[in-house]
């Protein structure tokens, strides 16, 4: 069992309320870094000093927030109205168990039983504004005694490993898989340069923590570790499949928010090839990561993105392949250890 992934994915940290997961990560890294601090946004930034052989700084980022829900009102029957933090397909929410607020009050996102649906209602998507979280409270006052407006709710999904232990199911692999990989890098031997690790907040609501973190880090290059949606579901047409589970680290070239630094991308691919680490080019096009916010702070820095492919992103249950996870740790490590000033500085 990968205990790191279990701990990280079972911890709660919806965008804007990352305290629990931040404290967990802090405890996991504190013995392996030279200094750490939490900035006003809540980003956890840690420095792992290098051997002194190379005179530059590299920022490695993973966002610690996850998509979740935000309680907006308690209705007269003690049911909780909610809004979303991050992007959801409303169809993924009904019938799911959630934990609300710091006291982790258990609730369920109620769905009308099929017995009670009228025929026309089968084809309609229930909008989030019509959904409620039911915490079993008998009245508004009873609910208000346990939950406050403004508190967050996260899904309840225990971490599990299936398929001979190489496939993992859990919530929030986006981006706790990246956080776990970054923690593993911090636990390894020092790099030739100072490595600045940023566990960033509020990615899912618009890359809000990352710009601040990158400005503070003032690094010479950045590598962002992510979990990107795998698009390998059954598809009869030979059109535009995306990265697939189990086929290696997903390397970004271009998404909606960035064109990745071509030299850094080439360097990473070279590191993968020379270390026999499988990789796949993530289909260029949509999507966005913290890279967009980090690439252009100050005078700009070369930035690239590596990702673990994950199925069912932004639902209560994601799936990743643990070989892909091991490979992102290996590839990030190999690419960092072989990084030189020539790769990242232009003349």
């Amino acid at each position: 069992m990968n205990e790191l992934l279990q701990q990280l994915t079972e911890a709660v940290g919806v965008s804007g309320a990352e305290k629990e997961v931040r404290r967990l990560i802090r405890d996991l890294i504190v013995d392996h870094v030279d200094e750490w601090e939490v900035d006003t946004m809540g980003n956890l930034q840690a420095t792992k000093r290098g051997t002194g052989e190379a005179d530059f700084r590299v920022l490695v980022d993973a966002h610690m927030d996850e998509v979740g829900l935000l309680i907006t009102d308690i209705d007269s029957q003690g049911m909780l109205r909610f809004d979303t933090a991050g992007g959801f397909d409303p169809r993924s929410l009904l019938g799911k168990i959630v934990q609300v607020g710091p006291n982790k009050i258990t609730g369920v996102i109620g769905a009308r039983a099929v017995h009670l649906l009228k025929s026309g209602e089968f084809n309609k998507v229930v909008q989030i504004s019509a959904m409620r979280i039911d915490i079993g409270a008998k009245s508004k006052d009873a609910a208000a005694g346990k939950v406050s407006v403004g508190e967050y709710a996260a899904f309840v999904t225990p971490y599990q490993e299936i398929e001979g232990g190489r496939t993992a199911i859990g919530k929030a692999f986006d981006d706790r898989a990246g956080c776990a990989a970054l923690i593993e890098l911090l636990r390894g031997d020092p790099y030739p340069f100072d490595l600045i690790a940023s566990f960033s907040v509020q990615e899912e609501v618009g890359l809000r923590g990352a710009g601040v973190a990158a400005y503070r880090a003032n690094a010479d290059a950045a590598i962002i570790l992510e979990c990107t949606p795998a698009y390998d579901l059954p598809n009869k047409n030979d059109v535009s499949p995306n990265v697939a589970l189990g086929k290696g680290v997903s390397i970004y070239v271009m998404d909606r928010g960035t064109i990745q630094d071509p030299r850094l991308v080439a360097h990473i691919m070279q590191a993968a090839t020379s270390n026999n680490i499988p990789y796949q080019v993530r289909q260029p096009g949509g999507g966005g990561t913290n890279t967009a916010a980090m690439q252009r702070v100050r005078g700009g820095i070369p930035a690239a993105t590596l990702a673990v492919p994950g199925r069912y992103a932004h639902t209560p249950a994601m799936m990743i392949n643990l070989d892909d996870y091991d490979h992102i740790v290996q590839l990030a490590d190999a690419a960092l250890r072989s990084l030189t000033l020539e790769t990242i500085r232009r003349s």
Partner: protein
Amino acid sequence: MNDLIKTLVEAYGPSGFEDGMRDLIRPLVEPYADDITVDAMGNLIVHLGPAKAPADGEPLKVMIAAHMDEIGVMASHITEEGFLRFTNIGGVFPHTLLGGRVQFGNGVTGIIGCDRLEDRGKIHPLNKYFIDVGATGRDDVPVAVGDAAGFVRPFEANGSRLIAKSMDDRIGCVVAIEALKRLSRDRMNHDLYVVFSVQEEVGTRGAQAAANGLLPDIGIALDVTGTGDVPEARSMNVSLGKGAAIKVKDSGMISHAGLVRLMRKRAEDAGIDYQLEVLERGSTDARSMQIAGPGCAAGCISIPCRYIHTPSEMVDAADVESSVALLVEILSNPIDL
């Protein structure tokens, strides 16, 4: 000037892949520069110090930006039969694609086809187009997913009307290069940074980083703007051949009012044709410069251009001349806002 224009507009340089453009422009501007740097994003930054510093305090730091990149496409999937599906780099309109030609960074040429049109009255979305590089299967496709391609179209001069695939914004680069050539250094008292920027077409990203690095006092972009002088055009008071367009507003920026006044005055004093521009859709590197760091006074000299983001963008040589003259006038005089 047409030789310079032809050289720049026919070169390859989609957003993010401007290395060739930078290599092309660098020797052209080197004779005029005090120093040249390339930043992490790939912006080519040409620095010229002031002839004499003002008695009271620092010279103004002026940033001029013309973007080297052009719109293009990027291969996103290779089918078993050897066709490439692709995504856009910047604002690519599907109705301009069919039958067009593209060239990849490694020189491979492809033509653009599309899935069968069931209804000729409708336009396919981008994901129903493909590039045919002449391959017979996936294994003999000479490009890979993630490779970028630019459009291919030769430069034409119909009298004063100049036509090319990437007037946006190679013509802005031409204006910057010509202005550097004509500028009398002994009259230029600013700390001048002429930035040939990258990744404008995907969201003025290069200029954002460059401006965050330079923190200029004044920012002026050189870019194309639309016109209202073709049949059934969206109404817009800019026409080809009526002079440099001084931008007042576009959808990403309201120009600094004092800078607009100063630009108009310089044009009027020097007898340079100009028109005022209000662009309803689109923006330029000036947007990024305006709000970089503590902000700066930003504006834009626009070159009127028809058919923007098609393979045949058209400008008028007289407007290019006016734009060069206006930029030289602005830089040769005090910028007192």
